[in-house]
């Protein structure tokens, strides 16, 4: 298994390299530049800025210059947030996004998993239909509707919780954004677990467990749930990478200093280095979580072996 993980990590290097290269040239191809404003700058100022940031050099030279810095762990200065380097921006924003995303993922797995199991065990009853209806609702209603509603109801009208702000990660400030972020994931996980659980409960080996008089909790948790988790595990990989790297919508609505907004503001302002920084972070998360899913899969299912 160790060899496998090592092999996968080594194999990720060319993947990341291709992503970096693709993203680098794509963003440069986009029209406009980081210093184009509605009011155009003095040509000399523009030229100076371009020289400072090496933007006057040929593209391939800029590319190798960027790669060189990247190899030393330097993501470069941000063009828009002038007083910060991209590294600093990500270092301050990433913990916020990861805290929110991690909690939302946990919530989604626990609540979604439990709801899915209950629905499967009570298949075709009122409880089952209620879970499915709620899940469908959760998937269809976008979080830019849910988030302001939550803030309005619990933050403004009832004043139970702060309606926004980070406040150094005070738990009360986390509740609403985490719920808003988790709701669609809860819905997806509940549906996935319900489906695979129904299948698992009908399988021959669960019939064996029932024929041997095992108690219900053993049948459900030990014999059905472990098998039912497998499809959910494959879903969680990409979902986790998405959640942990921040959500622009939730961060904007609740006024949180995560990294989700950087991707959008960076792209809109042609902040080349900031875009590259967020692309690299997201790519690393996707690669890592896919690896984690594969390892988890092998731990859950002894038929899967990589060595």
């Amino acid at each position, binding site marked *: 298994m160790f060899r496998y993980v090592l*092999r996968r990590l*080594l*194999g990720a290097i060319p993947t990341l390299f291709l992503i970096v290269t693709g993203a680098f040239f794509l963003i440069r191809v986009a029209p406009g530049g980081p210093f184009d404003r509605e009011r155009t700058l003095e040509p000399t100022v523009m030229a100076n800025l371009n020289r400072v940031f090496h933007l006057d050099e040929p593209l391939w030279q800029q590319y190798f210059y960027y790669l060189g810095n990247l190899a030393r762990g330097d993501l470069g200065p941000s063009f828009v947030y002038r007083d910060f380097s991209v590294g600093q921006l990500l270092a301050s924003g990433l913990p916020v996004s990861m805290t929110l995303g991690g909690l939302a993922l946990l919530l989604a797995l626990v609540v979604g998993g439990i709801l899915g199991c209950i629905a499967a065990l009570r*298949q*075709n009853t009122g409880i089952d239909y209620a879970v499915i209806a709620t899940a469908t609702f959760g998937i269809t209603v976008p979080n830019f509707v849910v988030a302001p509603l939550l803030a309005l109801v619990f933050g403004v009208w009832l004043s139970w919780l702060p309606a926004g702000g980070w406040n150094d990660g005070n738990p009360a400030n986390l509740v609403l954004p985490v719920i808003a972020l988790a709701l669609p994931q809860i819905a997806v996980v509940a549906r996935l677990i319900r489906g695979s659980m129904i299948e698992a409960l*009908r*399988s*021959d*080996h669960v*019939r*064996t*467990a*029932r*024929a*041997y*008089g*095992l*108690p*219900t909790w*053993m049948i459900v948790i*030990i*014999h059905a749930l*472990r*098998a039912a988790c497998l499809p959910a595990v494959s879903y969680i990989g990409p979902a986790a990478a998405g959640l942990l790297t921040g959500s622009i919508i939730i961060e904007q609505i609740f006024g949180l200093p995560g990294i989700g907004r950087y991707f959008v503001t960076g792209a809109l302002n042609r902040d080349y280095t900031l875009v590259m920084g967020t692309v690299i972070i997201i790519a690393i998360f996707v690669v890592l979580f896919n690896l984690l899913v594969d390892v988890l899969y092998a731990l*859950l*299912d*002894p*038929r899967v072996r990589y060595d």
Partner: protein
Amino acid sequence: MTQPRSPLFELDDIHVSFATPDGPVEAVRGVSMQIARGETVAVVGESGSGKSQAMMAAMGLLAGNGQVTGAARFNGDNLIGQSKRALDRIRGAKITMIFQEPMTSLDPLYTIERQIAEPLMVHGGLSRRKARARALDLLELVRIPNAKARLGAYPHELSGGQRQRVMIAMALANDPDLLIADEPTTALDVTIQAEILGLLADLQTRLGMAILFITHDLGIVQALADRVYVMRHGVVVEHGPTDRIFAAPETAYTTMLLDSEPTGRKAPVAPEAETVMDARGVTVTFTTPAGFLSRPSAPIHAVRAVNLSLRRGETLGVVGESGSGKSTLGRAVLQLLPSEGRVSFLGTSISGLDRSAMRPYRKSLQMVFQDPYGSLSPRMTVGEIITEGLLVHAPELSAKDRDARARAALQEVDLDPAVRNRFPHEFSGGQRQRIAIARALVLHPTLIVLDEPTSALDRSVQKQIVTLLRDLQIRHAMSYIFISHDLAVVRALADHVMVMRDGTVVEAGSTAQIFDDPTSNYTRRLMRAAFDLSTVLSEQSVART
């Protein structure tokens, strides 16, 4: 015959019905039967006769849409309507079950040690350590070789026979009074079947439990059962002592079951018939190529240097147990798998031809598969399925001509041509296999490779398909390569037989020679396990005492 005064287990007017979108379906309609302590009883019937569902209902294992009425008494207590808690004091402790599919009946995610230990801990109150120690004893009892090393194995690491031994170990764990064995050997090879049945018979004499066999295989019934219940369409049509049922069946249905062994022999072809296929040194080796930073896996030799020759109108039966390479050989001669060796068809070499080069020959070289469910596309009508090949091989035909060919092909396989607008799921297994044969037939092939075409079918349906295949062969002067593990079917169809084991040919010759006077020990063992189960079982028990 004398009924035991108080039966150990008794079904009393059991009815089972399933709620379906088309209304309730009655699967079992008033079944009553008894089994006494230590007795061996068989319930026989074809698929859909309700024999399994009656037992499932008694054990509270029906699917969610199932409804049961009647009584199932174990030692006088009615099990039906009991709470799960009350049932669980009996299930897995006093009554245990083993099932047809030993692969899926065990949980693939846990070691066999754990799965044997669970019922011991639940019912016997054993500690985990004691349960694991007992699991080892049980594995030794069911004669798993090198039991200690096998404790930590997962089901997929065991062979089919070993998995069924593990199921038996689980069943014996709590010293049951009754063991219900639902088609326990149907998925196994004949020699493994003989071993498993021998094991069960031996354990029964040592441990004294009653065994209830649910089976469609009359060979098993005759070899093992004291009494027999014959079921059809959800009712018991006949019951009595095994000897009486076999010697003097009272109903036409039982008589039909008893002679549903395929009969008749293939008529020999004229000696001047041309050679259709000739293959020399066919070898198939499977390797996994080396990947990024990984070494290639050890090559698997699935077929090693096999020769075969087939004349027009002839049938070559290829027999062997699972994993012997017989299906791989069938695919290799049709160039559906990369292989070494030389294969010629009607005098032209076809070995090594790629897909497009093979296309002109595909029309003449057809294949029919085992699983009539899996090999017909569920989203196409029967007419579309049958005529699909014509679109490729006879594009000049108009839609009307194709339809005419489809009707003719359906008539040839004794199906009403009107069915061509229906979908595969509307047909029974036997009808689907007829459709698969019609699909091959519509192209007027010269050679058909039939890969276990009758294995998924009931005996009586098998017999019809065998007769059909023989008739079609004479009518169209086709040659068959008939791949099967079922020796009785091969005997009724083949001119020549090839016995394969581990990718090589153990023995080859005319059908009469192989069946009446086999030279190799392996073939002899195969024949005896298939045709003389009783003797094999009694010899096994003598050998053990």
